[in-house]
């Protein structure tokens, strides 16, 4: 039985299409319901739908053998896994955004609101800027508007949300896209199957 963890939401739907397109479809997956586990006994597949940020955990701890997750999640949680293929969709980037016309005051630490604490700290350490990190769980765009922070670090797709909140990208940190990941131990024991899935997906890209 090969266990596959997919994120809920749009990336998960696209990820499932990738599997379905190369012949690993699973009955029931396309129905809109609240089920979280889908099993195809015959072909030995079990899909599970989990929160995007949890996919890497499921794979690292071996509850899933493989999974699909954004590089942004991998950069933030740094799981001990293999990252076998860039699937090319779910493209976005980590960026620093600030209110339009913002100017950095280097005489004091920069206040940064983000849900991605590790990525933020590593980036500002690499550019040598002292910061104060404000960890939020969502709607980070609000923080600079009401003076909670000077700037934000977030993932940016089209930039619409930023524009609507009168924010603009002031620095790019890293690009992200969906990745096929595998548990390091499971990969050794299911190498033939996982390699086959990877090469089929690569060819279908």
């Amino acid at each position, binding site marked *: 039985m090969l266990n596959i963890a997919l994120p809920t939401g749009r990336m998960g739907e696209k990820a499932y299409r990738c599997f379905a397109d190369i012949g690993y479809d699973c009955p029931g997956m396309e129905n809109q319901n609240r089920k979280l586990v889908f099993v195809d006994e015959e072909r030995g597949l079990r899909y599970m739908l989990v929160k995007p940020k949890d996919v890497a955990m499921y794979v690292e701890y071996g509850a899933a053998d493989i999974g699909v997750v954004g590089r942004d999640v991998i950069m933030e949680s740094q799981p001990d896994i293999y990252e076998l293929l860039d699937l090319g969709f779910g493209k976005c980037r980590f960026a620093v955004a600030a209110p339009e016309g913002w100017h950095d005051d280097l005489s004091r630490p920069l206040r940064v609101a983000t849900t991605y604490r590790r990525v933020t700290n590593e980036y500002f350490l690499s550019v040598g800027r002292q910061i104060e990190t404000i960890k939020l769980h969502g709607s980070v765009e609000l923080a600079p508007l009401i003076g909670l922070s000077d700037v934000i670090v977030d993932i940016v797709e089209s930039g619409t949300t930023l524009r609507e909140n009168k924010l603009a990208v002031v620095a790019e940190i*890293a690009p992200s896209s969906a990745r096929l990941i595998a548990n390091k131990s499971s990969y050794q*024991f299911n190498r033939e199957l996982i390699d086959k899935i990877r090469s089929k997906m690569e060819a279908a890209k």
Partner: protein
Amino acid sequence: MAQPNMSWEERLPMQLRALYRSYGYQIYKMSDFETYDLYRENKNFLSDNKVLTFTDIDGRLMALKPDVTISIAKDTKPEESVRKLFYSEHVFRRMPGANQFTEIKQMGLEYIGADTGYAEAEVISLACQSLAAISENYFLGISHMGYISALMRELKIDDATQSTLLAAIGRKSAGDIAIALNNISLSTQQQKAIYSLIEMPTDLDNALAQMRAVALNEEMLDAVDELAAVFNACAVCGLMSKLRMELSLLNDLEYYNGIVFQGYIKGLPRAVLSGGRYDKLLQRFGKKQPALGFALYLNDIWGAFIQPKDYDVDVLLLYADQKPCQIATAVQNILADGRTVLAAKIIPPEISAREVVRLTDILAKKENKQC
């Protein structure tokens, strides 16, 4: 020696000890404490730099040992040419993702003065036999830090780029390797050598052929020759199907310089065995001996293999006001049948027994009321 009533987790360490002794390894016992400075100076050798510390009566900052190998390297005398040791110790570490320290049962062996060639085959064979004692369904992934560091030197990249690149190789991420090397101009040969690290054929001969084909210098070729010789010796032990080249497997270049390896067992998410050649650790202590070794993380194994028991004991013997000698006779009789027995006056909570026997019933049946 092993008893039939012993559980698997009690038997395995005895089995491993017997295995290591059969190859002439001697047991190494160490204190639970070392000075904190020992770990501060060698923090990169540890997988996590958090150490459990306390202040000794004389004011020195001490640590509960997070590792055994560092102590063995420190205690090795410069004149000792060969020393084969194994250990079974508790180490204190923070588990990944956890916010507290855990006591971890670790067994391992160290071969001080280990030459290249046979010594490596012997340690790899012992690593395989240790894994086989747990499950026949295992693989040992093998890499060579000499090969990797010789490759890194060819690229002439700065330390920060190198650590980003190594992390990407460790994840087998072709995408992140490309990002790490974004602003660096490399020859086609160099690129090929880097990307081949994450795409190793499963067959050992093919893997070595690929490593030879992309090698950029003599040092990389030497590493391939060394591996080929070791694999030939491992073939004698019938281990070829259990070994895999896995060059994405990276140990710290500051300490490890030759063959390194990790053992995986089917059903367990993380490597349970990890080791390799760490000549550079001994050099940090001013010692010239080469050294090889591995450690086995027993905590990770228990959870996955211990079958939940149906019963804690075979017989729960309930006695009342009988004479102690009558109770003792009944206990001896049950043990003589090869069953386990818990004798008590009242039923202990949270104990499940296959069978509850009242001493009054036994005595009534046998009518042997005298002792």
